[in-house]
């Protein structure tokens, strides 16, 4: 009951903000389209960062192919609306336009997420046996394979890119899905299953010895993370109305990693903060665009020196304000005697 109320409240607030921002609710009141677009792209980045954090931050498996799964979701869902959109809409002609558009968007996102999840499964099963650097290299390779593969399918535009995608996504949808992503990841990491993920991050051998099916846990978290990236891709496609594989290069994967590293691996609020900071800096430095990457590199170096665990580290934003629980002092014993 409480959960339902909270969900309705969230939807209401998002609809209200959507109306105010786009100027359709109060005449004469709106924010500039430029700012609105940045907010929307930030929302998509939140989905990407939080979902990547599930695999990189909580499970501790360093994946750098997230843009590939985003690309699959983007192209799959865009292909659905471009190819079948008209037919689906005319079949649903008895419904009001808003409902029809929403259903079409949801259907396309489901397909995008499903395909990204399947790709995540196919990539995850063989590669999650690898650890550390090896996994990073394999996921990087897979991410690029996915991109080149899409680039060579003529039915979805190939090198021309895919255009004519209807603008079905807006501030409301993007932030609704960002909220869902945050909610799901939050609940997963605070569950019995989530504890197995963190245990894998801390010590995989010990986790296996304590009865955690590490392969299974890793693959599930990878698949869930990929599906969420697929949703982000679908929203991206239906917001910008044009797709090109250049949006899904490994640079995009690196950008998502920068967001979660800045915010703190293993912190959901950190990822949200990182996503906003990243896009804020990108836009703020637009005038000096040729120096932008220099500033980013310097920022990363400074953060890694000053705060290697990221701004929030493993903690969540709220925990810094939470009343510090009184803990009994750790008994400081004498150092162990040397046995002979």
């Amino acid at each position, binding site marked *: 009951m409480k959960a339902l109320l909270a969900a309705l409240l969230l939807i209401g607030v998002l609809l209200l903000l959507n109306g105010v921002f786009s100027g359709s609710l109060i005449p004469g009141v709106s924010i500039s389209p430029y700012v609105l677009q940045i907010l929307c792209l930030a929302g998509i980045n939140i989905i990407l960062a939080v979902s990547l954090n599930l695999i990189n931050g909580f499970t501790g498996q360093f994946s750098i192919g997230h843009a590939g799964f985003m690309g699959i979701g983007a192209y799959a869902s865009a292909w659905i609306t471009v190819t079948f959109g008209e037919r689906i809409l005319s079949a649903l002609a008895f419904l009001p336009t808003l409902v029809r558009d929403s259903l079409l968007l949801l259907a396309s996102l489901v397909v995008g997420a499903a395909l990204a999840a399947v790709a995540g499964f196919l990539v995850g099963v063989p590669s999650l046996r690898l650890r550390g650097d090896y996994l990073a290299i394999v996921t990087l390779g897979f991410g690029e394979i996915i991109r080149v593969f899409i680039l060579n399918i003529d039915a979805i535009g190939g090198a021309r890119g895919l255009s004519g995608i209807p603008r079905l996504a807006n501030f409301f949808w993007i932030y609704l899905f960002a909220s869902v992503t945050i909610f799901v990841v939050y609940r997963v990491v605070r*569950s019995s299953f989530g*504890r*197995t993920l*963190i245990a894998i991050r801390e010590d995989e*051998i010990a986790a296996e010895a*304590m*009865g955690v099916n590490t392969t299974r846990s890793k693959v599930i978290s990878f698949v869930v993370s990929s599906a969420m990236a697929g949703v982000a891709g679908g929203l991206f496609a239906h917001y910008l109305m044009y797709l090109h594989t250049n949006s899904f290069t490994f640079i995009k994967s690196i950008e998502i990693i920068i967001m979660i590293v800045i915010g703190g691996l293993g912190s959901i609020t950190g990822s949200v903060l990182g996503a906003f900071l990243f896009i804020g800096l990108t836009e703020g430095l637009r005038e000096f665009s040729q120096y932008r990457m220099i500033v980013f590199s310097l920022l990363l170096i400074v953060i890694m020196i000053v705060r290697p665990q990221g701004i929030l580290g493993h903690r969540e934003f709220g925990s810094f304000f939470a009343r510090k629980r009184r803990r009994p002092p750790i008994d400081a*014993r004498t150092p162990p005697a040397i046995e002979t």
Partner: protein
Amino acid sequence: MALLDLDGVTMRFGGLVAVNALELHVEPGQLYGLIGPNGAGKTTVFNVITGVYAPTGGSVKFDGQEIAGDRTVRITRRGIARTFQNIRLFGDMTVLDNVKVAFHCRQAATMTSAVTRSPTHRNEEARVEKEGRELLRIFKLEGLADEAARNLPYGSQRRLEIARAMATSPRLLLLDEPAAGMNPQEANELMDLIRWVRDQFGMAVLLVEHNMKVVMGISQTVHVLDYGATIAVGPPAQIQSDPKVIEAYLGGA
């Protein structure tokens, strides 16, 4: 038929024979000590039993079923739990969460139930919370439940490793040098604890330990390895006076 039967287990690493035709039988509820000089193959035996290595020869039977070469996680679920010689706790997790992870393999929790927070999931979480705290109380760690495991003093980390292994409800507990780095007082407490836990939960304990006071103090049977081969098996008193054991430890005259 014993609880754990190792018959002719051999483990070769290239030309090195780490364990040679080992016969080892642990009865249910038995306290079994495995000792030997450094490099005798004790930890290799542990790694063979827990499925880290598949033995190059012989059979490992747990409760009558062949487990040689099985995956570690399956062996744990069958009822064998272990601790590690070099402590392997989940350092950044709290003490309580360390124990809760080990409960997972006896839970029905899935990812979907975690997202929906179904009543089953909540009941199970409540049960795990209660049983986890109970285990910590037994191991005198209840005051440290919310502390990160890495911040614990050494002796407490060793106790937490045993508590965590207990959470998987084992019928056989493998302890790899549980008294390492403990002072005599802590080692004594540990002996009492191992005995108490064995009586309370009725599982067998296979113990690798260099602290002779501990091994001789609690083991019913002591098994001595040297260069991968058995040199003596018997009750502690008999082992202590065995000339071959003395020679292995002190060198021939």
